[in-house]
C-alpha cells in the first residue's frame, strides 16, 4: 500500500539530496489507517531510522488492508514475509494466549503515564511474555499503550447493574466474553464491519474501543453516551521477525532497538494527542451529540470487584505461563503505582 508520505520519500530520492544509496528496504505493517496511532508511529519510526542510517535504510509503512487483514499480516510477520510491524494482542490471542492478560479488566491503574511505565519496565511483560511471543517466530521489542478503552452505549453504564442483560459487542475471545458475563451482560461477538449498523439497529447495545478509534469509525454517531471507564488498555507491540532480526549486523540491531526505545515516549504523546483531539471532536459534535461520562473511583470499584474472579479464568485457560506472568505482573503493578 502507499500513501502521501511515501511519495515524499520518493521525492527525496529523485532530488538526490541525501546522496546515500538505499541498502536496506524493509516492510513495516500496521493494523490501522493513516492518521491513527499505529500508522503515525510507523512513519515516525521510519523517518528516524532513515535519518540515523543516513538514507541507507528505507522503511515502507503499510496501512491496514494493504497486505491483507490483521491475521494475514501477523502470519506474514511470523514467516518473515515482512520484516517488522505493530501487532496487538487482540490478534495474537490464539497463538500467544498469555497476551490476553491485557484484556483483563481493572488490572492496570487508570493513569496512562503509569501504564506506559509499567509496559516499558515490567519484567513479566518484557521477559516472560516476550519469550512466549518468540516461540511464534517474532519478537516484540516493545509494548506500549494506544490509550485506555472506553464504552459507548445508549444508556448510562455507571454500575454493573446497568449491564444486566445488556447486549455488549466483543471480539470472539472467550476471555472477553467471560469479562462481560461477570457484569451480567450478554456479550455478543460481531465483526467491526457490522458494528456501526448493529449499534444503529440495536442488534448490539454497546461496544468498547479506544477513543480515537470510536471517533474514526463513527460509532459515537449511533450512540448517546461515551463512558470513560479505563477498564483496560489497547496495548500494541513493535515486533520484528526473529530470523530476519538475527541475521542483521549487530550495529543495525542496536540502531533498531535504540529507535524502538525512543519511540516509547513518542508513542505515548501520539496516542495522548490523538485521543484528546478525538474526544474533543466527539464532545463538540452538534450533529450527533454524545454525552461523555467519566466513572468515579467508587463506580470503578464496583466493576473491579466483579472483574477480579475473571483473573482465575485467565490463569486456567490462557496458556501455561498465564499464572506465573499474572502473579509477577500484579506485584510489579503494586510496586509501580
Amino acid at each position, binding site marked *: 500500500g*502507499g500513501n502521501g508520505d511515501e511519495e515524499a520519500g520518493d521525492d527525496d530520492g529523485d532530488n538526490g539530496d541525501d546522496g546515500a544509496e538505499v541498502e536496506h528496504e524493509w516492510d513495516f505493517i500496521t493494523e490501522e489507517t493513516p492518521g491513527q496511532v499505529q500508522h503515525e508511529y510507523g512513519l515516525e519510526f521510519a523517518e528516524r531510522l532513515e535519518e540515523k542510517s543516513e538514507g541507507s535504510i528505507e522503511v515502507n509503512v503499510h496501512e491496514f488492508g494493504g497486505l491483507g487483514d490483521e491475521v494475514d499480516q501477523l502470519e506474514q510477520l511470523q514467516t518473515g514475509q515482512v520484516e517488522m510491524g505493530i501487532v496487538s494482542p487482540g490478534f495474537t490471542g490464539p497463538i500467544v494466549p498469555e497476551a490476553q492478560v491485557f484484556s483483563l479488566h481493572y488490572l492496570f491503574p487508570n493513569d496512562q503515564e503509569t501504564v506506559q511505565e509499567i509496559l516499558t519496565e515490567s519484567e513479566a511483560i518484557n521477559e516472560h511474555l516476550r519469550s512466549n511471543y518468540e516461540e511464534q517466530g517474532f519478537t516484540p521489542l516493545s509494548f506500549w499503550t494506544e490509550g485506555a478503552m472506553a464504552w459507548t452505549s445508549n444508556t448510562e453504564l455507571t454500575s454493573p447493574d446497568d449491564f444486566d442483560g445488556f447486549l455488549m459487542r466483543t471480539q470472539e475471545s472467550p476471555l472477553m466474553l467471560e469479562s462481560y458475563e461477570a457484569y451480567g451482560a450478554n456479550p455478543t461477538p460481531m465483526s467491526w464491519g457490522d458494528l456501526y449498523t448493529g449499534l444503529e439497529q440495536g442488534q448490539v447495545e454497546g461496544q468498547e474501543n479506544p477513543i480515537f478509534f470510536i471517533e474514526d469509525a463513527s460509532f459515537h*454517531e449511533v450512540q448517546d453516551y461515551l463512558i470513560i471507564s479505563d477498564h483496560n488498555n489497547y496495548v500494541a507491540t513493535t515486533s520484528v521477525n526473529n530470523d530476519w532480526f538475527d541475521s542483521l549486523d549487530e550495529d543495525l540491531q542496536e540502531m533498531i532497538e535504540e529507535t524502538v526505545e525512543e519511540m516509547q515516549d513518542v508513542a505515548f504523546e501520539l496516542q495522548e494527542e490523538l485521543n484528546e483531539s478525538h474526544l474533543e471532536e466527539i464532545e463538540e459534535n452538534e450533529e450527533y451529540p454524545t454525552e461523555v461520562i467519566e466513572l468515579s473511583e467508587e463506580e470503578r470499584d464496583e466493576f473491579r470487584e466483579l472483574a477480579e474472579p475473571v483473573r482465575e479464568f485467565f490463569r486456567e485457560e490462557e496458556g501455561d505461563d498465564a499464572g506465573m506472568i499474572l502473579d509477577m505482573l500484579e506485584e510489579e503493578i503494586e510496586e509501580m503505582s
Partner: protein
Amino acid sequence: MVTTLVLVMVIFLLLGFPMMIPLVLGPLVLAIFFLPQDPYIMTQQMIGGISSEVLFAVPLFIFAADIMTSGRTSERLLDFVGAFVGHLRGGYAITTAAACTLFGSISGSTQATVVAIGKPMRERLLRVGYKDSTALALIINASDVALLIPPSIGFIIYALFANASVGQLFLAGIGPGVLVFLCFAGYAYIHARVFDIPLADKVLWKNRLNITWKALFPLGFPVIIVGGIYGGVFTPIEAAGISVLYALILELLIFRSMSIFRIPSIALSTGLVTSAVFILVASGQAFAWAINVAGLPQMIVDTFFGGDPTALYVLFMVAIFFFIGCMFVDPIVVIMILTPIFVPVAEQAGVDPIHMGVVVVFQAALGSATPPFGVDIFTASAVFNRSYLDVIRGTPPFIIIMVIVSILVIVFEEISLFYRYLPF
C-alpha cells in the same frame, strides 16, 4: 509487467478457461517469479477472500430461495405481487427493481439479493413475456443499487479510511440510489411499451383478497426479515439464517409440500452454486493482492495526479479507477485498497469527502455488474445456470443509465448532499 498480466488474463478468459484460472494465473506467476513474498501467500489471500461473515448470507439466501421455489412459498408470494401489479405497464419489472433495491439495502449483499429476489422474480418475468437477457440484466443491476441505500457496508469501509461520518454518507447515498431506481423504473415502463409486453387482466378485489389470504404465511417472510433487522432482533446475516428456518417451517410443517429427506439434495444444489461463486471471490482476492504488492495503485496516483488537479478532474479519475477496479475484484476489497490512496489527493483538490464517498460507492455498485468480471454476473450465471454471455447480453441499457447517472452525481454534488440544503 502489469500489461502482460492483464493480457494473459484476457486471453485465457476469452479462450474459455474456467474464470478462476485467469484470475489466479497472473498472481501465481508474479508470486513465483517476481515478488519477494513466498508464493504460498496466494493461498492465504484466497482464504482471506472468503473469510468474511457477510458472505454467510449468500449460501443462506440461496438455500432459502431453493427451498421456497421447490415448495409453494414463492409461487404464492408472486401470485400476490401479480394480483396487484400484473395489469400495469412494466409492473413486474418495476416491482423487481424495487424489491431488489429494498432487499439489497437490508441484506447488505448484492449477491444475496440476486438470489433471493432474482430467483423467484425471473421465472415470473419470463412467464409474462420478458426476454431472459432483460430479466437477468434488470436483476443484477437493480441489486447493485442496494450498495447506495443505507445501511451499506461500502460506506462503512469508506468512512474508516477517509475518516468521514458514516451517518452523513448514509444520508448522501439515498439521493443517487433513488435516482437510479427511478431511471430503471422509467426504462422498464418504456421497455414494456416498446416490446409490447402483454398485460394481465386486472384482478378483481374479491380475488385479490383470496390470493392475499393464501399468501398470508409467505408474506411473513419479508415481515420477519425487514422487521427483524430494523427492529434490532437480528443482524442481516442472521436474518438470512432465519429466512431458511421460516422457509423450512412453511414447506415442511404448514404446506407439507416436501419431505425432510429432500433437504440434503436442495442443500447440495446450494453448495454447488456457492462453490462456483466463492472460488471466484477467493481468486479475486489473490488478484487484488498481487496488483497491490506490485505497486499498481501507487503508480496510478503518480501518473495521473501530478501537478494541481481540479476537484472535478480528481472525481472523474476516482470514478474511472474505482469502476475499472470493481470490474475485476470484489467492490469492498477495491474500496479498502484504493480509498487510502485517493483520499490525500482528493483532500488537496478540495473534494468534499462525503461527495467522494458517494462517487466511490456508486462506481463499486456499477462495477460489480459490469463485464468482464463482476461478482453479480458470476452469481447470476451460477444460480440460474445460464452462460456468461446470456447473463450480460441485456446489460448495456442499464449500464448506460448507470453511467449517465454517475456523471450527474459527479457534476452535481447537490444530488448527494441534498440533505445539507434541507431547512431542518
